[in-house]
């Protein structure tokens, strides 16, 4: 087994699905599940290996720095595991949720997204990174418009517009880098970029910040995010929040730690993270639509992750990873439950959710659970990651971000709890008898159990987080293994 499976198999599945669609609709639904199950299995088996010692896979026989490599280190192991597992849960949820035709296109694009995301995480080549980025993006644009309604198309177009900008700048940055160092291998670039004139490096940095910042939802580059999150089908929202953004942030941080590891850059990230978080949380406060609210909350959480990365110490990076993990889990749970809540209430509005807690006790329970977890209350997993972020920030001697993070947590609590209140306490009688399908409930149940488990026993994840953080921060080892 090799890390190539992560890219090849979903890609293959993506092309297989339309064919399978000719045979049977059920097959279309089952194939992604099987693929993701297999990938999860692979990721879990490879996990200890990658964590212990990075695996570098050479594609097509060219040796680095000339050929394309896959770098499966601790952090890649962690992220692929996260992506595949979340992907599997999302598939489980989609199984009954996506009932609109064309199902095969949905699953095809979904597989493309998985391919792209794992590719971003795994690749050791900057242009390859760009390509995977584009795969992810195009799949994401299409998925956003999947429902074929007016707003979906609008959101997708905005996403596309901004996303094209991102890819443009990214490509420009690659061009400039290539012009200067004549290599595309990340490890090689990391070695050679030191000789490049400072001005050029800075320009490249800015272009990367913009290009990847758009995908990692940094303010003011995140105009697309609320629309895309809220108009895409709910599982796709979970994919965005749980997979795509994580991959984007990872690549941003990888590039920054490899090429531009300076305090000023990190401080800039810190400040941008804070601004992103605050503005997103404040905007979420008065949203009328539940999914839009979740989108803003997602942006806010990514702000938090960026803050933690911006501190740039090992504990903080570890905390950021932990937060990414928790956010992927919890936000997926929230999107899942919100999806069914919206479906049952027949309206995207928060005000339409009154009393759903009585009609749909289990789904509503999951939403409430997720709300409590994402605010960062113990004993849920969100508590630990937030705590670690705060501790690491304070360890770095900064107090202002701590205060601001906590203020935004309070705002977060306010808008989430408002929704929870509405669910349970605004109307007493039950009206609707439609049931949430079992597969959806199982998906949410899995997430819930994991959240609680991690909440009570954070070492479960934290133990794997330490090598991942070290991997991300340790440029030398990356260069060493990346170039043999």
């Amino acid at each position: 087994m090799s890390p190539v499976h992560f890219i090849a198999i979903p890609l293959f599945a993506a092309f297989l699905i339309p064919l399978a669609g000719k045979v049977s609709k059920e097959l279309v639904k089952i194939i992604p599940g099987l693929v993701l199950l297999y990938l999860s299995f692979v990721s879990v088996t490879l996990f200890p290996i990658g964590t212990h010692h990075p695996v570098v896979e050479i594609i097509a026989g060219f040796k680095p720095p000339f050929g394309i490599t896959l770098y499966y280190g601790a952090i890649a192991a962690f992220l692929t595991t996260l992506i595949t597992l979340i992907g599997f849960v999302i598939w489980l949820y989609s199984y009954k949720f996506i009932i609109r035709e064309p199902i095969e296109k949905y699953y095809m694009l979904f597989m493309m997204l998985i391919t792209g995301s794992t590719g971003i995480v795994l690749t050791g080549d900057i242009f390859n990174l760009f390509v995977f980025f584009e795969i992810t993006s195009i799949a994401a644009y299409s998925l956003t418009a999947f429902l074929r309604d007016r707003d979906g198309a609008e959101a997708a177009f905005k996403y596309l517009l901004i996303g094209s900008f991102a890819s443009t700048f990214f490509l420009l940055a690659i061009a400039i880098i290539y012009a200067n160092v004549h290599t595309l291998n990340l490890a090689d670039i990391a070695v050679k970029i030191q000789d490049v004139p400072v001005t050029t490096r800075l320009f490249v940095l800015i272009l990367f910040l913009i290009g990847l910042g758009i995908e990692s939802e940094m303010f003011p580059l995140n105009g697309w995010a609320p629309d895309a999150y809220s108009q895409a089908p709910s599982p796709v929202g979970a994919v965005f929040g749980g997979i795509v953004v994580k991959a984007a942030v990872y690549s941003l941080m990888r590039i920054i730690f490899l090429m531009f590891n300076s305090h000023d850059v990190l401080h800039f990230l810190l400040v941008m993270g804070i601004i992103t978080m605050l503005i997103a949380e404040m905007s979420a406060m008065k949203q009328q639509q539940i999914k839009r609210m979740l989108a803003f909350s997602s942006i806010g959480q990514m702000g938090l992750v960026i803050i933690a990365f911006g501190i740039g110490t090992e504990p903080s990076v570890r905390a950021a990873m932990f937060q990414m993990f928790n956010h992927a889990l919890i936000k997926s749970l929230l999107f899942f439950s919100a999806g069914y809540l919206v479906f049952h209430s027949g309206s995207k509005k928060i005000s339409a959710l009154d009393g759903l807690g009585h009609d749909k006790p289990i789904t509503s329970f999951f939403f409430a659970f997720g709300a409590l977890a994402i605010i960062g209350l113990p004993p849920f997993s969100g508590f630990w990651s937030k705590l670690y972020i705060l501790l690491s920030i304070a360890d770095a001697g900064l107090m202002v971000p701590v205060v601001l993070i906590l203020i935004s947590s309070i705002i977060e609590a306010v808008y989430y709890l408002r929704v929870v209140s509405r669910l349970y306490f605004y109307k007493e009688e039950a009206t609707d008898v439609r049931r949430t399908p079992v597969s959806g409930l199982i998906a949410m149940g899995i997430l819930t159990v994991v959240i609680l488990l991690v909440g009570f026993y954070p070492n479960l994840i934290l133990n794997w987080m330490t090598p991942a953080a070290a991997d991300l921060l340790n440029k030398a080892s990356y260069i060493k293994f990346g170039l043999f």
Partner: protein
Amino acid sequence: MNSIAYILLITFAGAGITFIVHHLIKPLRDIIAITVAASGLYFVIQSLTEKTKIVFGIADFNIIWGNTPYSNLFAVLIAVLGFLTILYARDFMAEKERLGYFYMNLLFVIGGMYGIVYSQDLISLFFFWEVMTWSSFLLVIYCCKEAQPIGLKYFVFSAIGAYSLLIAIVMIYAQTGNLELSNILQNFGNISEVNQIVIAVLLLTGFGVKSAIMPLHVWAPDSYSISPSPFTALFSGALSKMGIFGIGMVLFKFASHSGYFSYVKIILAWLGGITALLATFYAIFQTDAKKLLAYSSIGQLGYIIIGLAVGTPLSIAAALFLVILHGAFKAMLFMSVGAVYFRTGTTDMNSVTGLIRKMPLSFVTMLFGIITVSGVPPLGGFAAKWMLYESLIQSKHYFLVIVVFAASTAAFLYLYKLIFSLFLGQEEVEWSHVKEVPLLMLIPMLILSAFVLVAGIFPGLVLDPISHAMQYLGNYGFKYETSVLFNEWGNKINMQTVINVIGAVFLIAGLFVTFKGLKKTRYVTTKDIHTSGEIPEENENLTYAVDFYKPFERAIAPALKASIDKIYTAIGNNLEQAFDFLRYVYTGNGQTYAMYVVLFLSLLILFAELIFGIKL
């Protein structure tokens, strides 16, 4: 395994089991809840004799649970009140919905409180603090739609408190690199003085929210009054004490090193005094019994804070004595008001009246409660007030003692209004169907009543554990006997004599008045009163309850105009408006977003020097 582990395990697991059982076998639910609370009580008593410590690692931290004399004091309070509350809830909540939810959160609250007092490190302290916070929030919003904004307010304030705790914890971690209590206490002096003060103030703010110190109290009246009565008893009786627990720890274990700290203490003491006075004034003008009690709670917590902040042995003893006592009497009062609510369906003091003959035992409970609150001898409240005043005078807080005294005198007003409106006064036809509450609700009330009586006669019995707790806090040398209290000037009061004299005189006079002309003494209804010869109709309202203290209100009107609550509301609304304004950044026009991107790019390039330190 030892007792503490059992306590936490049983309570938390019991909470989950209760919730599940509620959905499977409804009748078992109450039994399980009561069993859980009872076994918690059993193990707390077990743990009193042990001195144990559990250490295990979670994440990167050592989690340490252990008991100290100080925590034992609070644990007993929690255990007893928790048990009695659940006992009381059995019948009170019988007809309500969502009982699984109720019992689960109630047990979570109890478990969270156990956790707080047994935590020997700040991580688990904060962990349990938050557990307690959200489970109590869920109980506050339990009742109805009206409770939602109130619950939200409670949660926001709790979150502010919890997060200032968290900031302090984070600062401590940054300064000492460790979060174990024993370790922190050793190294706290090494932190710079400014940081010490900041940490202490943050901790005090955090704990102060739960104990409702003045500028942070606004959540309390509404939350207390809207939450279901059994929980309110626990809320006011035990949960608010967690703040006190923390404040005690901060004042005596943490920040005793810095010289500036005395100023913090003085400010805290005065805040407590103002809290006591203003809360009392607000309580006087309430028309809802639970709201009145809520303000009363705030006021009483003010006394406790004064006692702690003044910090002489006697004042700490008074504060801790009040902690125990307030737990008991406020639970009694809330239970008694709850009993009224249980039978009449309202706690509006303007409409309920004259229940004394229908609910005599509830009345007795409330009578004992208000005598204790008012601090009139011979019940326990007097011993506490006595110690508080003496210690304040002897530690030269002359004006504070006046404020406190004014507050506790003004307390007579609302206490009288409470008992008068609900139990005394005209017996209206509207409430003629009312009966005494079931036995299971009476038992907790009567147990607590007996306790306040004993605490009044033999304060030494309660002061024994308190003196142990104070030794843990580093305060020695306060003198007491089983029923004799001494102040620092050597004056004393003998509660035994007091109760003997009062009892004897009361007995003689009572017998005299009873047996003098016994046959010709008859009972007449409350309709048969002097009305200048007019004959009141059967349903005519003769109760004087609306605007009961109008003259007093007129006298102190200027003091009541400023309302902190309104200030907070204004701040909240304006902030929300401002947030609302911010989201107009997202115009919805894709081109604008693209413009943002380009502008951001240009800005970065233009100010590259400023941002990255390199000129582009």
